[in-house]
């Protein structure tokens, strides 16, 4: 499949493209941004539909509440800014005025994770998934590549309630050859396996495949599952996978607290207690550097994922 794959593109580009497409299809779509419409790519919509685009300046709280008001007024608002500000700067607004009243606001944030790079820790969001997962009614989506991000945004239009979709800054290698019709249950088994489950989201899904390759050389059969919908998480697929493999490693460009690792740990300890290793930021903030340097520094590579898998396998069943 690798040969025909499209070229690497950023998930935020998919947001821009899909939003533009949606805007042409649906009159009731409006978009908002907080002075980052070039980075988040919402500007494409803004250029095509200036009357339905509201740049609120650097005022994330106001943006989220305006989105809520627009939703009450019958619109389907797409609101974007960097992930760290979309979730943290306006948490109470999202909580009280979007999640609690269950309004169809789509928060499409860019610059999730540490691959933000040189801007450093203030701009690298490593808690956003955890923050959004804590909110009742909120659907939490982390696409793995351009095509999946495009599908996630297209699909979001018809879904009820509030949605958080996390996009990234850098180009990422393609994982899905074509644009899927939607995310389905949000848990795609990319490769079946029997010794260990690798649950990954975002850019880590591709790395999980690479890690599975490495593990294969050591005669370890790893099942790779791309979890694109972190909430509501597809418990059945997770539990099935764990019942086949008996242990797992999670991988995410996010804190090991509260994100994918937290979600899988909770599912496992409730339904099928097995050992879970969590790869992610080990409760630290990021720093400045090139994206790849940071991924290495914070152990978010296929190599580290394979290593951790080995450790988890050693203590499997202990």
């Amino acid at each position: 499949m690798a040969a025909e794959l499209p070229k690497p593109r950023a998930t935020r580009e998919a947001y821009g493209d899909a939003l533009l497409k949606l805007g042409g299809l649906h009159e009731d779509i409006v978009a908002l941004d907080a002075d980052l419409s070039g980075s988040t790519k919402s500007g494409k919509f803004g250029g095509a539909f200036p009357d339905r685009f509201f740049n609120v300046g650097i005022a994330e709280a106001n943006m989220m509440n305006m989105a809520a008001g627009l939703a009450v007024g019958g619109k389907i608002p797409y609101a974007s800014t960097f992930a760290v500000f979309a979730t943290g700067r306006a948490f109470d607004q999202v909580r009280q005025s979007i999640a609690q009243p269950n309004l169809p606001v789509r928060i499409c944030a860019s610059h999730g994770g540490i691959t933000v790079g040189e801007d450093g820790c203030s701009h690298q969001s490593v808690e956003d998934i955890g923050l959004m997962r804590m909110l009742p009614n909120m659907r939490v989506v982390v696409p793995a590549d351009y095509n999946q991000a495009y599908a996630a945004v297209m699909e979001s239009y018809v879904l009820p309630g509030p949605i958080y979709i996390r996009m990234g800054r850098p180009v990422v290698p393609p994982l899905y050859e074509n644009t899927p019709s939607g995310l389905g249950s949000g848990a795609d088994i990319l490769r079946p396996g029997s010794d260990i489950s690798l649950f990954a989201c975002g850019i880590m899904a591709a790395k999980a495949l690479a890690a599975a390759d490495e593990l294969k050389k050591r005669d370890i059969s790893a099942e790779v599952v791309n979890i694109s919908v972190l909430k509501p998480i597809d418990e059945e697929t997770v539990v099935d996978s764990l019942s086949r493999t008996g242990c797992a490693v999670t991988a995410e460009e996010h804190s090991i607290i509260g994100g994918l690792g937290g979600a899988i740990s909770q599912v496992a300890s409730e339904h099928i207690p097995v050992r879970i290793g969590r790869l992610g930021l080990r409760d630290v903030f990021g720093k400045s550097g090139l994206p790849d340097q940071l991924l290495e520094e914070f152990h978010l590579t296929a190599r580290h994922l394979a290593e951790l898998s080995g450790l988890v396998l050693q203590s499997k069943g202990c």
Partner: protein
Amino acid sequence: MLQSPKTRRGALGFFSERLSPLETQKLGKKANLLRRDIIRMVAAAGSGHPGGSLSAADIIAALYFRVLRQKPDDPRWPERDRFILSKGHAAPALYAALARSDFFPASDLVNLRKIDCHLQGHPDMHKTPGVEISSGSLGQGLSMSIGMALAMRLDRLPGHVYTLLGDGESQEGEVWEAAMAAAHFKLQNLTAIVDVNGLQIDGFTKDVMNVEPLVEKYTAFGWHSRAIDGHDMEEIIAALEWSRTIPGPAAIIAKTVKGKGVSFMENNAGWHGKAPSAREAEQALAELEGKKVPGEGEPVGR
């Protein structure tokens, strides 16, 4: 403060001429009814916020019984005016106005804050008919109003959005983000009313964190803004009408008395969020009854 009958006409021409003395009196009675409802509700609940509900009673009465075009039997009528209670803790005043406008039975009022009653401690748009948005966390209502006003403008709907804020609430920075944005978006269909009762929870606003001068602040943020006596029904109505004629957002800075109408609650921070005892409620109601025109019954609805 009052302008001539001609210029006081609403932007859309549907306001009546200058209030007649009878109409003024009628609205005053409605406000008094809301006040009595507030006391009964909060006393029955055993908790709640009488002070800021009473200070807002005249403004809310003016809106619900004179200014707002709404259809209680069709709460989501697209052409309606919207009222947004940004200072959500004044829910009793809003609930009373909604009940007395027949959005739901007035008999519900005494179940305020009770488990499984739709009348939550702070307004919930999905539970109570007529509540446009959920509020309670201060500082968010004006921003939501902007969103609603923009949606209405996009849909070419004629309605106007009226948003009531507290003076303490105006310490929240988001209010000023919203103020800046409403002016930038030239929202003609938006009016902010600030209930300047001079008190917040911890004391006088000027001592805790001075928000004045509010007229100047709104002006510097690009609004048309004017000060009124928030208990003078003629001034309130005139200002609400004036605000619809402005080619942008308009702010009404309404000087009020917290706890207005109940002697022992007036100007007393202690009554911000405390329910009166049965005896206190009785005294409050007696005072308010005294202000009622003798012989007046308890009207339900308009």
